[in-house]
């Protein structure tokens, strides 16, 4: 018991989250985005646009679960589409057997936990490329089961006609549900990532042997991280199946998992907004650009290559770096010796924060 306490404290000292300006900026940007997202249905856009944004948010939720593992644990999973599909099939099967939507949630959750546990148990001893291969293999297994067990899954034809609960029937209410789920998932992953647990994960990512010799149970941490990430992936799977009313083996396919990794890398591994940016790019190219350009897969490939070549930290990560560099240059030009006092007002924070910060700033002066 005492061991446990010491452990937690040690972690706190080197892993405590520090609210620097970049993070505030991030939060401000998030707030602004959230306001736009909330008023979007009232801006006179068509139902199609709302449904497209829902698709982006669902993909972003799924990408965020991959991003959490990759960013904090250094574990790049090639099988998260499989977890989402397991959850979707849980809901789909319950719907086909005539259960009400409440039971669909139970089955989806059960399938998610079972699938995540299998993934977690098989992959917790591995890291790096071996982790990639194990998750790929389990993903293929789920695809194979969905394809083969045609009496349960409907085979290649899939299961259709899956209804979501009545109260979220209309497309714009469902949009808010998806938005709330995305915000909640992002917040949960953010909090977990910045907790002592997240710090230990990053420790494991950086040096597994050192963490083990410090007395950490590396495997349990990895399993725990996988369960958290898998649950979020399952949530995304349930949201997706309620959005499209349909599930087929292709939703568990390898290409889907690869798309998720592309989203994460495009947005920036380990960043808060990265999954949303990446998901938006991939979904928009796939669904909107493809209406106008025949060679849209080429364009998606080019975007990916350009990001890898010139913005290796992804779009969100590289923008952050750019800001930091610009600020460093500005500061070194204006007042090189004195670092800025903590909590000085910043142009990019949200209005509420702004006044509070200014006030605090005055007090300090």
């Amino acid at each position, binding site marked *: 018991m005492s061991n446990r306490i010491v452990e937690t404290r040690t972690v706190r000292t080197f892993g405590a989250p520090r609210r620097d300006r970049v993070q505030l900026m991030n939060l401000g940007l998030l707030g602004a985005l959230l306001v736009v997202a909330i008023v979007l249905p009232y801006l006179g856009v068509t139902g*199609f646009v709302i449904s497209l944004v829902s698709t982006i948010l669902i993909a972003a939720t799924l990408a965020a679960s991959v991003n959490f593992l990759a960013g904090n644990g250094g574990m790049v999973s090639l099988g998260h589409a499989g977890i989402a599909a397991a959850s979707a099939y849980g809901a789909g099967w319950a719907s086909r057997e005539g259960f009400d939507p409440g039971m669909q949630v139970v089955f989806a959750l059960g399938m998610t936990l079972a699938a995540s546990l299998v993934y977690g148990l098989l992959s917790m001893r591995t890291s790096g490329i071996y982790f990639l291969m194990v998750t790929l293999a389990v993903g293929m297994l789920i695809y194979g089961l969905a394809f083969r067990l045609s009496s349960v899954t409907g085979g*290649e034809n899939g299961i259709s006609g899956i209804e979501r609960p009545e109260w979220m029937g209309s497309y714009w209410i469902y949009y808010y549900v998806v938005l709330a789920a995305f915000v909640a998932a992002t917040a949960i992953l953010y909090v977990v990532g910045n907790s002592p647990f997240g710090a230990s994960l990053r420790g494991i990512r950086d040096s597994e042997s050192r963490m083990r010799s410090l007395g950490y149970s590396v495997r349990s941490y990895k399993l725990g991280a996988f369960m958290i990430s898998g649950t979020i992936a399952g949530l995304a799977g349930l949201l997706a199946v309620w959005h499209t009313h349909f599930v087929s083996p292709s939703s568990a396919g390898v290409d889907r998992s690869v798309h998720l990794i592309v989203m994460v890398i495009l947005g920036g591994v380990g960043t808060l907004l990265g999954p949303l940016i990446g998901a938006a790019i991939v979904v928009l190219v796939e669904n909107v650009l493809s209406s106008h350009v025949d060679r849209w897969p080429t364009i998606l490939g080019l975007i990916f290559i350009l990001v890898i070549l010139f913005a290796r930290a992804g779009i969100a990560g590289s923008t952050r770096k750019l800001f930091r560099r610009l600020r460093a240059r500005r500061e070194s030009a204006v007042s090189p010796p004195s670092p800025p006092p903590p909590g000085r007002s910043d142009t990019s924070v949200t209005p509420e924060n702004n006044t509070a910060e200014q006030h605090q700033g005055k007090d300090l002066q």
Partner: protein
Amino acid sequence: MTSMKTRGRRSALVAAGIAAVTALALTACAPPGAAEPDPTSGSSGEAGGSLKVGYISPTTGNFAVAGQEMVDGWNLYWELNGAEVNGITIETIVEDDAGNPETSLTKARKLVEQDEVDFIVGPLIANTALAVAEYTSSVGIPNLHPVAASDDLTQRNANDLTVRTGSMGGSQANYPGGEWAATEGGFDTAVTLCADYAFGWESCAGFVQGFTQNGGEVVEQIWFPNTTTDFSTYVSQIQAAGADVVYVATAGGAPGPNFLNAYQGLGLDPGKLLMNCCSLDQGTLRAMGDQVVGVKSVSYWAEGRDSDAVAEFIEAYKEFSDGKVPGAYVAGGYMTASLVASVLAEKGLVTGEELVSAITEYTFEDSIFGRVSWDDYNNMVGPVYVREVTAGDDGNFYNTPIATFEDVDQWLGRTPEEALAQPTYSQTFQGLE
């Protein structure tokens, strides 16, 4: 006890009240444009006006060739006859779904909600077709299927707004093949080699039922994964089975020629072969030419059939594509277009369920498939041909019919109720008791 009850009742009342208020508030907060569009707003039964068509097809990705052919067939008809029928102009918006059900659905939503199309044609792959059909029926938009062969589209998942207009179900199109092999073909035993997924299971089930119902015996069924390139082990298995006739069903593309090369490479008799539509389509004929003359297959499309409609279609497609002969996918697109044109010419501008019932009540006497009509489940009932590859005068190769089965329906000799009560076809269930 009573107080508990009243409390329970009161809290139920409160809950109901809250629910009602929430519902009211939610409706009051509904954004502008949230009201569902009225699908029956289109005028009907009059000449003139315009018809907007959404055409979904995988023109990129793994199925790009078939997807492009399906679009070409549709466009070819309108190019040939002008995009105006009975004063109604036809406008087509083509969307690419890359064979992915989620993209297919988003594209269908875009076509319905943004472009406000009157009906949707396509897509091609079974699961995309089922997903789109489900969506379009929920918003009251007709969905015509020029190629999709999934049985369930017009069986377990059938609805009033989904019609198969340019193809047949997988089992339906192969059932007469089994009947022919057991009767006219004079074969007693059969071995089957089919692609190991829904389309292969359905095709095989059709053949196996036709064959056994007419006294034949299936000695072995072999399944191959869609990605197979080397068929030599399967051919050895076929040789070992020692049956009179070999039935082969692939999903088109490379497996057809690959199988034929392995089969002939081991010196087996091509006269014993009976293949499905797609194993011996124009792609295979162009690739193998003289090597496959005389090989037999079974399909609803026979480009070598002696008919004015077919001749006109082939002539037009040759001009369009530098002398190529059209395969089943082009034919499906062309057939759907000519069907829509015929219905519009007869009934004027019809949309929604009226368009679907106009199609299903129509008997297309001289279509490129022959005389076709539609059943109560909106599936095509028409001729199926047993075909033989022949060399044409123009240097092309044609599948020419040697036997015709008229008015083939999708129930394989059962009543619809009996057929629908069965499980879906799989490796383990081929429709035999």
